[in-house]
Each structure stands twice: as C-alpha cells, then as structure tokens.
C-alpha cells in the first residue's frame, strides 16, 4: 500500500510495506493517485514523456523494495512476560484540574496513598513475572506522586536492591504537576528518574483556566519557576513538559511555542479526553485542529532553522532507525506486559482503566486472577484491528491506545476515528519535517 499526500507545495509518497518516504513532483503524485489509488484526479495534463519517466522511477523503486512492498500480515504470539507497572503511589492530588480523567486524583473512590508494603509487593510481582526481561519499568503516577514522596523513594531503593539480586535493571519515570518540586525532590529525580513528565499547559491564562489549586486559584505562577529550575539541572537526562489542549485552546500551537520560548526543549501537547461539554474535542473541531498542527509544523521548522529548535513528541518520526516491526505490530502492552497498580494493590490494564471494576485483573499478592481479561489484551494486536487494515499509519501508530478505543468505541480493537484523524495529520507533519530537516542539512553541507 502507498499513501500519496501533499503538504502545502510538497508531494510525498509513503510506502507502508517498506516504511520508506519519497518526495515527488506534482505530475508523479497525481499519476500515482489516479493509477495506483484509483482517485479521481485529472492526469490529462501529463505528457507521454513524463509518464515514461514516472513509470521508470516507480519500477526502479519497486525493484529496490522501496515501493509497493508486501506488508507483514502475521505476527507471533505475544509473551506473558511483564515489563512495566504504572504505580498509583497516591490517589490524591493538590490540584483540581477540570479535565482530569482521574476524578481530580480520587479515581471515583476514596483519596488514599499506597503504603510501602504494597509498593514492595508490586516490585516483587514485577520481578517474578518478568521472565527473561532484563529491563523493567516503573512509572510513578497519581494523583500527585510527590504527595507520597517517602514511599516513592523507599520503593525506588527496594526495586534497585531486588532488581540487582535478580539481574534486572529498573527504569523509573514520574509524572508530576510540579507543585512539590524543591531542591531535595529535584536532586532525587535527577539521580533516579530515567524520565520525568511535568504537566504544564502552556500560556499562563490557558493553564490557569483549567489547572487550579484546591481553592480554585490558578497554578501557573506556583510551578513555573520550579519547572525551570528542574530543567536547568536536568542535564542530558530525559524529561517532557506535557500539556493538554481542549476546545478552549484550539490555537494550541501558541502554547507549544510559548513553552519552547520559556526554555523547554522537550515538549508534548495532547488532546484532552473528557466528557465536559465546554472542553471536549468533537469532529466539528477537527478541521481547526488539523490546521493548527500544520501551523505548529511551520513554527517548529522556522524555529529549528533559526537555531531555536526543540523536540515535540508527536513530530518525532524515525523511519530509518525506529522501533522494530515486532513493537509496531504488537500494539499497546496494557493488560499484558503493562499493568496499573492501585494504592490497595489491585491490578488494572492501565491507568485509564483504573478503578473500572469490569477491568479488575487481580492484585500484586495473588497475581492475575482474571486470565480471560489478560487473554483479550494479549491477543489484541494491529492485525485484530480491522479498521486499521487499509490505513497508511498503521505501522506507526500500532492501532492506537487501548483505553481510548474502549472508552469511545466500546472495544479495544476499534479505533476512534477522531483520534485517528489527528494521528494521521501529525504523522504527515512529522514526515514533512523529516524531509525539510534533511533538505536543510544537505544545504548546510554544500
């Protein structure tokens, strides 16, 4: 399968089977759209000479396995080895953000923190169920993880100790709203955390409209200097400043650029998942969102060219050294290699399914007691998602987020078309950026 698309005045061909990206002129793009994709495109203006050249180019690429390559259609069963846990170290939060999927930290239950006994049992569960895996992950999540810092620190120490004995390496991540960052927590994070995700929505007025204290005050001024200090001391280690955009800020490119100009060079901005009428994103917003991704793409490239480049998570695409096919096909690991652990030790497929009793899978002491739920997740992969079959993006997005699919379409194997549309636009932007960066690099080398 090929995908022919244009980005402003540029034409691209993405070959799904080989994961190759090509740039072409307009006659070639129109010819391929008409002849290979059956689209109603006028090609009467293309001369016989041009057609001969196009056919010759196409034949050359096909011979090299870079166009029209057969796609992988089968994939071996996934293993039962557990790789990662999302540790809900604290089901409480010192913010009250309106769009919070986690019921402002409480997950529609009581506000509570995980005790050390439970956290240690989670570590033991992970090691015991990790099989031959050498690299294991723990993501400290909430609520707000820093509200239970002592247990978080003790859990890291215990995991390193037990991991050392078992020949396993732990990678830790924390997602935080940054309010409790101080010299001590920054030093701890920089020593122990492989990645830190800091929640910040962008411009102060955008952030403050949603992310509030328990008393209903905006939080931007309370956290910005703390995040800046953290990033300043982070060195080469990974972090993301992560924002959420809603129907209230469809001009979210301004927020990404604002964050970049504040000095953050690793940014992610995600579409909100909420039922709130004034914030939720619907299909009627889609044209504006797609246009905004293009606007962000232009600003991103302009800043890159001016030496002010930054990393925007969704514009990363690595067609040369990206993930292996095994990862691309196996899709999200939730419910099979990845679980969420609630403060009481209960296991769920991931944080987005947390506390939905239908998805209760067991606990860290007894292990998986609902194997039928695990089987459903284990058997799910790109090829069980029928709607993905004819999508050019399938080996890049892997069929999307299980939880997103379930919450919008009632089934983990049915992708939500709104999410798909945003994904495809971001991927096209990422491919254009890849081409533009190569063009810039080659012109610099001249």
């Amino acid at each position, binding site marked *: 399968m090929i995908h022919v698309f244009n980005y402003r005045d540029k034409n691209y061909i993405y070959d799904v089977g080989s994961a190759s990206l090509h740039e072409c002129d307009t006659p070639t793009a129109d010819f391929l759209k008409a002849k290979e994709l059956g689209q109603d495109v006028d090609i009467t203006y293309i001369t016989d000479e041009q057609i001969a050249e196009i056919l010759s180019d196409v034949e050359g690429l096909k011979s090299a396995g870079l166009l029209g390559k057969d796609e992988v259609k089968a994939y071996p069963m996934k293993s039962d080895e557990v790789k*990662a846990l999302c540790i809900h170290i604290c089901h409480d939060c010192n913010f009250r953000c309106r769009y919070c999927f986690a019921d402002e930290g409480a997950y529609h239950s009581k506000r509570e923190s995980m005790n050390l006994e439970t956290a240690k049992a989670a570590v033991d569960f992970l090691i015991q169920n990790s099989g031959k895996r050498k690299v294991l992950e723990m993501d400290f999540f909430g609520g707000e993880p820093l509200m239970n810092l002592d247990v978080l620190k003790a859990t890291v120490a215990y995991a390193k100790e037990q991991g050392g004995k078992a020949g396993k390496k732990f990678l830790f991540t924390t997602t935080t709203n940054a309010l409790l960052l101080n010299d001590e927590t920054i030093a701890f994070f920089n020593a122990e955390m492989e*990645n830190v995700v800091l929640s910040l929505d962008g411009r102060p007025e955008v952030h403050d409209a949603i992310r509030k204290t328990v008393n209903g005050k905006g939080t931007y001024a309370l956290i910005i200097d703390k995040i800046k200090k953290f990033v300043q001391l982070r060195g080469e280690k990974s972090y993301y400043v992560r924002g959420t955009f809603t129907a209230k800020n469809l001009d979210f490119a301004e927020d990404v650029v604002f964050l970049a100009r504040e000095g953050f060079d690793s940014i992610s901005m995600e*579409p909100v998942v909420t039922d709130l009428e004034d914030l939720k994103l619907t299909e009627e917003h889609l044209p504006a969102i797609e246009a905004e991704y293009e606007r962000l793409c232009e600003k991103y490239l302009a800043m890159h060219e001016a030496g002010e480049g930054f990393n925007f998570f969704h514009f990363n695409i*690595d067609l040369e050294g990206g993930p292996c096919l095994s990862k691309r096909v196996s899709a999200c690991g939730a419910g099979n290699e990845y679980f969420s652990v609630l403060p009481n030790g209960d296991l769920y497929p991931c944080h987005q399914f947390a506390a939905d009793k239908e998805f209760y899978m067991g606990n860290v002491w007894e292990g998986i007691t609902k194997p039928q739920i695990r089987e459903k997740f284990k058997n799910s992969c790109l090829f069980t998602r029928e709607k993905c079959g004819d999508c050019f993006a399938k080996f890049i997005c892997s069929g999307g987020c299980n939880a997103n699919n379930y919450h919008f379409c009632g089934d983990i194997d049915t992708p939500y078309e709104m999410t798909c549309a945003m994904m495809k636009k971001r991927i096209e932007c990422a491919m254009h950026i890849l081409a533009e960066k190569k063009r810039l690099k080659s012109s610099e080398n001249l």
Partner: protein
Amino acid sequence: MIKTIAKPQEKKVMGCGECRSTCQSACKTSCTVGNQSCERVTREEKIERK
C-alpha cells in the same frame, strides 16, 4: 521525479523488549509507537561514538 527521503535500516535486533512502554514516553493519552526510536540501537550507537 521521485527522490527517496528515508528508508529503514536493516534491524540488528527484533523484539528484544528493551524499549520503554509507549505510554510511558511522554503522553499518557495518545501514544504513537513510531515517535520512538529503537532504544537498543540508539544506545549501541552512542557507545560506538564514544
């Protein structure tokens, strides 16, 4: 005219599982596997460059 921009390199390893879970990379809501690199290859390249 068709010009190749990018084509995949032969993979030295497949399915080693050393990469991070997609959900834990940055977003926690809209994961994209293709936004990540093969961490094992990236790490080995870093070692080779040293």
